[in-house]
């Protein structure tokens, strides 16, 4: 569509002194016929903003371009109601990192002007997706996390449906003898506060509780989830079995080959192995519509199979820390074997050095529980002795104070140590350890041996959610079995939009952390329901009103989009074409990059738009000896790194042109072809780190880009070009100081080749 564009060039920040502003303005006015073009300093000032507003009103502008500082600053100032706003970064990307009044710098600025106006002129006017309007919250799990999340969401005025598989609320806290206070001086224990929480939930008329029930299925999308709740029964085991088998097969297939799976062949078969949504629900069930979901399904103790070598199962006085809680809850501490009073307890932190990640399910909670249970003994028996053998003693935050109080207790003996064996020592048990702080192998006698076990998320055994998604019923998990969508940056997100995890399902946590976590997840769930009702994306592109649209007529049913979407946004229509669920979408546009037919587009981001930007770059002929490099760059971490390089006045070649992408996973082969046939000499792709410690905001975008580029050699061969003309890089946001080397090295490499022979075609 045709836009009436106003271009506002900022001459502040040294821009006016470094560039020929008149020449730059004439690019906008002569080449592109911008309706308005003004050059002045500091457009973010209120009186200058008034000039822009006046132009919008009097000239009927539909788009405003600010050519000045980075788009990461003055976002609020440069927001105009119903007006497209585009930013050209003349500050960090041009004058702060390239020589002033230099021909190449001027050419760079003018190219950015062309690219910015081209981009703006490609914006399309499409409405946002506001169909999902349901705002109630489904909370799965009635333990301390689920109860807290329910109370939080209900307290904010939202209807809550709470599903608990047990016949009563409270979860593990019903079994715990005492808990930490979380109050100064942090060295005491109190009775579990769970009963008050249960009462509060039961008396809250905004919370509807389903006891002894499980989620049978969840279909739909945020703001319009359809949840079927079914009383607990043998059906859940059958369902889990089918789904787990499906998952195991899927994983086995993925591990077998590093080749990209051929989606068209496998996906249909895969889907067929899952139970379909029954057409008639001929069983006792309840159906509710919810806007978002808090998954607080919690944990189970790690299977005690590894504990056998420490006498678990053979000696009744070797118990797990869970059993110890139950024992302590009964009152006086007596031995399970003969009912005699317990005087000595050895708490042994279990380390299975045979497995790769022995710490996976332990965290600090194991240490805290051992400390807590040692406290039980010392409180009830002044002559009692408690040994605590740990691999890592972890008492984070204020728990340090509890640790110290126990450390000061003369009856508590702590040492690092690796358990070797537990044997019968006559009237008591003998625990054997190696690598202790006492510098020697150690044996101690104990009336009771308490083995700590890990906390396994229940999602390891079951999908719990039973999603009716094209990509399967499970939340995607990280290599360690936890649901994940980049924990460090987005702690509550999962890879299924609108479903937020909280509490121990996310990793071992103490009660206080669970409560905090529950509140966070409840707020996230509310935020999601509210945003999708306004047609906006959730984190990390919160507020984005664009969404992918598919020109289905040209779809070849290759299913790449449905397979590659990291968030499972696409289901499938019976004819095999993708069925978008816009409110599940995070707007990363990875699907746009995946589509070989190039039929997926956003109103402000499309294959055509980026292709046009590439084509708008002015490429000097081969005799000018001015090579051109296009850098497709992830706007989440890599682009800010470039900004930071500018802020730090790091200089690098002015032959490069940055084109920001929502994610490097947007990369479409056609852009590469466009650039090369235009005469661009080299192409770089800069995205986030990937692999185990990935930093991609959309989980696997940069990885996919790398994969796609590995297939580019065909294109290059067809054009008779060197493969070194394309380079893919991973750049973390803190690595900005490497930017000049990164770019200059590439430009240096290109200088070894002839200019791109397609220049001037």
């Amino acid at each position, binding site marked *: 569509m045709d836009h009436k564009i106003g271009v506002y060039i900022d001459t502040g920040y040294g821009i006016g002194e470094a560039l020929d502003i008149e020449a730059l303005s004439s690019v906008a006015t002569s080449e592109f016929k911008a309706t308005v073009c003004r050059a002045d300093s500091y457009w973010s000032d209120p009186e200058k903003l008034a000039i822009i507003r006046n132009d919008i009103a009097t000239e009927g502008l539909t788009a405003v371009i600010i050519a000045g500082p980075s788009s990461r600053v003055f976002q609020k100032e440069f927001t105009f109601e119903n007006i497209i706003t585009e930013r050209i970064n003349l500050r960090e990307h041009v004058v702060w990192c390239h020589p002033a009044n230099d021909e190449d710098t001027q050419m760079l600025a003018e190219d950015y002007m062309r690219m910015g106006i081209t981009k703006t002129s490609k914006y399309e006017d499409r409405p946002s997706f506001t169909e999902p309007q349901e705002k109630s919250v489904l909370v799965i799990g009635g333990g301390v996390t689920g109860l807290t999340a329910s109370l939080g969401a209900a307290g904010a005025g939202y209807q809550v449906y709470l599903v608990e598989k047990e016949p009563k609320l409270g979860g593990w806290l019903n079994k715990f003898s005492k808990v930490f206070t979380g109050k100064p001086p942090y060295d005491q224990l109190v009775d579990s506060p769970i009963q008050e929480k249960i009462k509060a939930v039961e008396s809250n008329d905004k919370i509807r509780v389903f006891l002894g029930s499980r989620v049978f299925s969840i279909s739909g999308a945020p703001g319009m989830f359809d949840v079927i709740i079914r009383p607990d029964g043998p059906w859940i085991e059958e369902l889990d079995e089918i789904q787990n088998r499906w998952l195991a097969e899927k994983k086995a297939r993925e591990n077998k080959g590093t080749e990209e799976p051929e989606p068209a062949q496998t996906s249909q078969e895969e889907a067929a192995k899952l139970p379909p949504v029954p057409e008639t629900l001929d069983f006792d069930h309840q159906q509710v519509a919810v806007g978002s979901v808090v998954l607080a399904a919690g944990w189970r103790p790690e299977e005690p199979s590894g504990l056998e070598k420490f006498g678990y199962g053979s000696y009744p006085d070797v118990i797990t820390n869970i059993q110890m809680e139950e024992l302590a809850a009964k009152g006086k501490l007596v031995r399970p074997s003969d009912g005699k009073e317990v005087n000595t307890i050895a708490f042994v932190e279990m380390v299975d050095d045979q497995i790769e990640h022995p710490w996976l399910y332990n965290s600090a909670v194991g240490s805290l529980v051992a400390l807590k249970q040692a406290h039980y003994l010392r409180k009830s028996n002044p*002559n009692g*002795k408690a040994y605590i053998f740990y691999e890592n003693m972890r008492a984070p935050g204020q728990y340090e104070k509890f640790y*110290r109080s126990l*450390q*000061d*207790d*003369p*009856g508590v*003996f*702590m*040492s690092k140590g690796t358990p070797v064996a537990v044997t019968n020592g006559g009237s008591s048990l003998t625990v*054997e350890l190696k690598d202790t*702080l*006492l*510098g*020697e*192998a*150690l*044996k*101690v*006698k104990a009336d009771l041996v308490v083995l700590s076990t890990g906390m396994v998320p229940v999602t390891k055994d079951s999908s719990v959610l039973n999603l009716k998604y094209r990509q399967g019923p499970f939340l995607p998990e990280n290599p360690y079995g936890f649901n994940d969508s980049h924990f460090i940056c987005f702690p509550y997100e999962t890879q299924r939009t609108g479903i937020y995890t909280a509490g121990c399902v996310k990793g071992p946590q103490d009660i206080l952390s669970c409560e905090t976590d529950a509140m966070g997840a409840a707020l996230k769930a509310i935020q999601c329901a509210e945003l999708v009702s306004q047609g906006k994306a959730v984190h990390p592109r919160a507020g984005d009103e664009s969404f992918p649209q598919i020109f289905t007529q040209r779809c070849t049913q290759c299913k790449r989009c449905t397979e590659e979407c990291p968030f499972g946004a696409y289901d499938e229509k019976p004819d095999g074409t993708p069925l978008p669920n816009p409110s599940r979408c995070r707007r990363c546009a990875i699907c746009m990059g995946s589509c070989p037919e190039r039929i997926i587009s956003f109103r402000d981001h499309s294959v055509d738009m980026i292709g046009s930007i590439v084509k708008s770059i002015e490429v000097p002929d081969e005799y000018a000896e001015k090579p051109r490099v296009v850098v497709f760059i992830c706007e989440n971490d890599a682009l800010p790194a470039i900004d930071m390089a500018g802020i730090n006045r790091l200089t690098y070649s002015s032959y490069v042109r940055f084109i920001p992408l929502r994610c490097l996973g947007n990369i479409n082969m056609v852009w590469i072809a466009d650039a090369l046939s235009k005469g661009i000499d080299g192409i770089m792709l800069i995205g986030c780190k990937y692999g185990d410690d990935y930093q991609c905001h959309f989980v696997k975008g940069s990885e996919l880009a790398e994969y796609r580029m590995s297939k580019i050699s065909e294109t290059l061969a067809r054009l008779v070009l060197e493969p070194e003309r394309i380079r893919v890089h991973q750049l973390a946001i803190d690595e900005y100081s490497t930017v000049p080397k990164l770019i200059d090295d590439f430009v240096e490499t290109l200088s070894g080749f002839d200019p791109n022979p397609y220049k001037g075609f």
Partner: protein
Amino acid sequence: MAKDIIAEPDLQFTKDLIAAGGGDLKKCYQCATCSVACKVAPDNNPFPRKEMIWAQWGLKDKLLNDPDIWLCHQCNDCSTMCPRGANPGDALKAVRKMVIQNNAKPAFFGKLVGESSMFVLALGIPAVVVLLILLISGFSFPEGAVVYSAHHLSPKDGFIYLPLVQVIFTAALVFSVVSLVMSLKSYWTSLESNNPIPVGSARKGFIPSLLEALSEILPHTTFKECEANNIRYSAHLLTFWGMIGLLVTTTIVAFNVDILGLLPPSQNGPGTIPIKILGNVSAIAFVIGLGIMLFRRLNVPDQAGGSSYFDWFFLLIICVTGVTGVLTEILRLAGMVGGAYVLYAIHLVFVLSLLLYLPFSKFAHLGYRTVAIAWAKSAGRNIMLPTQPKCVNAPTMEA
């Protein structure tokens, strides 16, 4: 050392150590800052880190047979640097007290000296003995110039009947020495049996080891290594040599008076001036040394370490001995006859305490430390600082 140990923590022992001044020992989390900070710990298996966990774990046998606790001169570098405030210096001191108390023969004396509840009795015994001597001597101040020693009761030719003093004080000394020797002998034996020397190690005999230990103790060589608290080295050196000087003076005078039948120096002419000088200089050194230690204990507890009853008891008797000794002389010279006699009597009470409690009070460290250092020498445990600094540059990672 034994391959593995069966730990049966002695809860009471840990509590005793805590009561004996090791109140913070449970705070240790074995970071080993102390062992690194310590200037005198051997490179191999250094203290006080290992002692800290033994103390936390109430491993009585380990601690009571650990010669390393005596290698510590308590400069308190470890305590000031401890990130956890566990005060390893104080913990070791408490262990030393327990060693003295545990090896006490007869055991009752260990309690008598070590427990604050016994304070009145502990000082009461020597006081009563001295009072009895005074009663027998005929409780009166002689006319004229000050004459402390009476050689005859009638006519009484001095303040206090000397033969009785000699008999009782000598008996006390003999008792102490015998007791100390017995204690040290059993201590040595238990060091031997609990710290087996690795097979093949060269072993030194007792006498050469003892001589080597003394050659280090007399000039306070190791003590001097405690840099942070160097003033304690000087103070202890003054006290130590002051004490020896006073001992020599007393011995010579006793020899002169009792064997040669000469008059005591206080009643004598220029011929005894060297003895007088020795005595006075020693006394001044003794009192100044003690004064410094007392001052620092009261004013710089961070460096001096905590002070338990056991410390105070010994400090009390040794300080009062020194101070009354000096004051007695001053009053005598000032002509305050009555005051001189009274102070002399008090002085005797504390001298007797010092003698009697030698093997049971902190005073016993002179024996235990000597024996432990000798044991370390004999076992080849290096307590001298290596000539090279302990920290060598870490090997570079460049391959």
